[in-house]
């Protein structure tokens, strides 16, 4: 995006004359390659190239927002013109459109066909019967704000979702699989390992018993729990939640440290600049068991400034304070000790999704399968189910037994809120939690 930042600053400055005013232009260039496999055949390849620009002006409790297709000079002028008109300012003079020559917007995925060949081989070996959708995304985002330096950031992401048929000891079994990671050659190696592990033969699953159960959330899956029960309620524009009334209160064991860290570029939700151009800083959601800080964007920031969590799904949407990567610090307990402490309960390694209702603090996490633990030893395979509970009792029910190793949670990928979907990630050690509601699901 070859913008004339000085001109844009000049257009925006009159809109940001008062303390707390916010005026900015945001642009995005996106290339997405989407590949669909079914049973060893690449059935569909889709390529998407989009450019978009938006302008935003916020003063007090009101905001004007304009978005247009394209990210060239003409698009910037059109968005700013719409904003200035609605703000009662002189619109910018209309200049003839200066479309970027085709070559200028070339970013693309030269490696998409190579990734397709490599993945075809991986699927053929580990999961020959499957239906997978792969998305390779590359975004370049640029922000020019009144009174601030301009910023640009680029991200490349790989997202694979689908189902495959795996062998179980009592016959074939369909299993879901999701893997979300920043794009790199190492990511494909990690994906291969994860798929091979997911495809290992297992015993036939029995239905999850309904009732209350103690659980170990293993394989980084605890990040999904904290994404729902900590990160969402602490997003600065969230409604009144049970956490909102408890600043600095002790809500969990002192061993628990949970941070939202967008700087972790090895995780799916990482970035160098947020979508308002702010460099992110890690935010403690729970520090030594005490409720931490809120995740803020510029519109909801205190005097200390935004924490760099202003995020948007694209240029057609205004930024909202959103979580990025939820990272839980390691403890010192090994797996054997975790199982011994659990005694009887369930072992969950993956969640397919989750939700939280902010006002009541109730949450649900869907898992595709689990493992029963009896007297500290692995027992039956369990089928799909739902783990449910309430925010504060769940935090209180976390045992001071956190695993030694922190695992990246690659099944955590896309988070939807207020109609906007953004990439999120997480990493966590194994975690033991008591008395959660559990029931089977179709």
């Amino acid at each position, binding site marked *: 995006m070859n913008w004339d930042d000085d001109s844009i600053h000049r257009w925006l400055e009159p809109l940001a004359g008062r303390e707390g005013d916010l005026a900015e232009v945001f642009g995005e260039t996106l290339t997405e*390659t989407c*590949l669909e496999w079914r049973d060893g*055949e*690449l*059935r*569909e*390849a*889709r*390529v*998407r*190239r*989009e*450019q*978009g620009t938006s302008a935003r002006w916020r003063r007090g*409790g*009101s*905001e*004007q*927002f*304009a*978005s*247009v*297709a*394209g990210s060239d000079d003409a698009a910037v002028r*059109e968005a700013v013109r*719409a904003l200035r008109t*609605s703000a009662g300012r002189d619109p910018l003079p209309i200049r003839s459109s200066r*479309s*970027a*020559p*085709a070559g200028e*917007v*070339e970013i*693309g*995925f030269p490696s*998409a*066909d190579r990734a*397709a060949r490599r993945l075809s081989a991986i699927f053929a070996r580990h999961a020959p019967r499957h239906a997978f959708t792969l998305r390779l995304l590359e975004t370049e985002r640029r922000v020019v704000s009144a009174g601030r330096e301009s910023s640009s950031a680029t991200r490349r992401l790989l997202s694979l979702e689908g189902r495959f048929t795996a062998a179980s000891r009592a016959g074939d079994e369909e299993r879901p699989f999701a893997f979300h990671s920043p794009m790199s050659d190492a990511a494909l190696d990690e994906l291969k390992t994860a798929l091979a592990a997911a495809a290992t033969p297992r015993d036939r699953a029995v239905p999850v018993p309904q009732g209350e159960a103690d659980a170990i959330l293993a394989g980084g899956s605890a990040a999904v729990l904290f994404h729902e029960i900590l990160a969402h309620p602490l997003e600065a524009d969230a*409604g*009144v939640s049970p956490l909102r009334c408890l600043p600095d209160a002790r809500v969990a064991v002192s061993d628990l440290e949970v941070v939202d860290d967008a700087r972790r570029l090895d995780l799916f939700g990482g970035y160098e600049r947020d979508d308002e151009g702010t460099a992110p800083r890690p935010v403690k959601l729970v520090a030594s068991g005490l409720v931490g800080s809120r995740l803020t964007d510029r519109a909801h920031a205190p005097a200390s400034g935004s924490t760099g969590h202003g995020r948007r799904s694209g240029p*057609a949407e*205004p930024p909202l304070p959103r979580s990025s990567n939820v990272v839980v610090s390691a403890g010192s307990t090994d797996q054997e000790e975790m199982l011994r402490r659990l005694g009887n309960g369930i072992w969950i390694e993956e969640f397919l999704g989750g939700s939280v*209702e*902010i*006002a*009541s603090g109730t949450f*649900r996490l869907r898992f595709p399968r689990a493992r029963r633990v009896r007297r500290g030893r692995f027992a039956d395979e369990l089928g799909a189910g739902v783990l449910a509970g309430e925010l504060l009792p769940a935090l209180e029910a976390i045992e001071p037994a956190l695993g030694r190793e922190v695992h990246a949670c690659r099944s955590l990928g896309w988070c939807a809120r207020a*109609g906007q979907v953004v990439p999120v990630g997480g990493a966590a050690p194994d975690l033991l939690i008591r008395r959660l509601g559990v029931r089977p*699901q*179709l």
Partner: protein
Amino acid sequence: MTGDDLEALLGQRAPGQWELYRKSAETREVDASGAFQRWAWRREEGWAARWWEAGAPRFAAASGPDALALAVPEAARIAVAAERPPDWPSKTAALAGEPTVEPPPALFEDLSRAVAAASRGEAALAGLRLRRGRAEERIVNAAGLDVTQEQRLLDGVALCVARRPGRAREVRVPFRWNAEPEIETLARRLSDAATLPLSDRPAPFSSGQWLLDPAVGASLLGALAPLWLDDKPPRWLVREKMAGPVVGVADDASCDAAFDGEGVATRRMLLVEDGALVGRLHDLSSAKRAGGLSTGHGVRPSFRMPPLLGPRRLFFETKSPSAPAVLLSAITKGLFASALTAPPRVDLAADRYEIEFTGVSIVAGRAQGPVAGARARGRVSELLRRIAGLSTDLQFFPSPFLVGSPTVYIERVSFE
């Protein structure tokens, strides 16, 4: 690069086997809460090309013609499996309307008052996003198709929070209005969905009759939509006795748009008549596989995706409707499902469903009290056959395609 240039480019790559889609849209939106208001204006432009090259389907989309010209060769570079191209429709039609889009009305205050009144002060409107828009689509293809059509919408999302000491409930309700705002109906939906779960009472019966609010009936019908899309119907399905004899299901989007996303003329499709399965939906690709004709159900939720087979305006209908009060009075012991508390889960292959809802218990046609949360579960085949009544109060809901349902009366349902 212009549209004509793109047609020439596609014509060179895939002689006789291409389609070019263009969408221009403008929307105005008001997003209001108690202390904040956002006015948004959006101009969207989208281009999409679909073509068969070397026997295989390709798709590329972009926000402008230059970017699409770059995306086309990139999509062609990846080797995909061969598939027979569809039989492309050919027709010309130009339907252009008034290009202006007025801002949506400011309804936050009115809806706030209506929600407070409907809930007797227990619930409060926390946010309202209202959007009015216009989209113009043009589809051309190698067979000579050239159609242009316009669509308009007025839709939104409302957020409502209800509180009692020690308990709270938050609901988000999407809605779509055909013409005039229907504030009272929306307020009642918000109030019921937010306040009924606060009652703390579980389902008092383990089985009984089940009366579904139109919103719940629509969610159920939406979850059953694959029955009319899949190439192979599930094994349990008996065509002649798919549902109760009062049940009819149709899809008719002719009041929304003259053509589908592939340029095929919209028409009414009868899918279930007197409880028997009588039809299914096709887009160009599925029609080719089945050796038939498209029914006009190639859907483009966005220019970013190729057209997909899907319902467009699916709804229950009946030849013998009853008034809602008549259906209510027919209940001897049962539950009225006012709102869902989780998305319905339906496994058509396994013939299972599970629906979590909140509502009111009913004995001898009279409301007994709220039910905070209940779950109905069982076989889809039995549920459909036990539908014994459909009402006159048909309403449509976005889900994400439009689904319509009146109040639905079902016999012998198991509750938890």
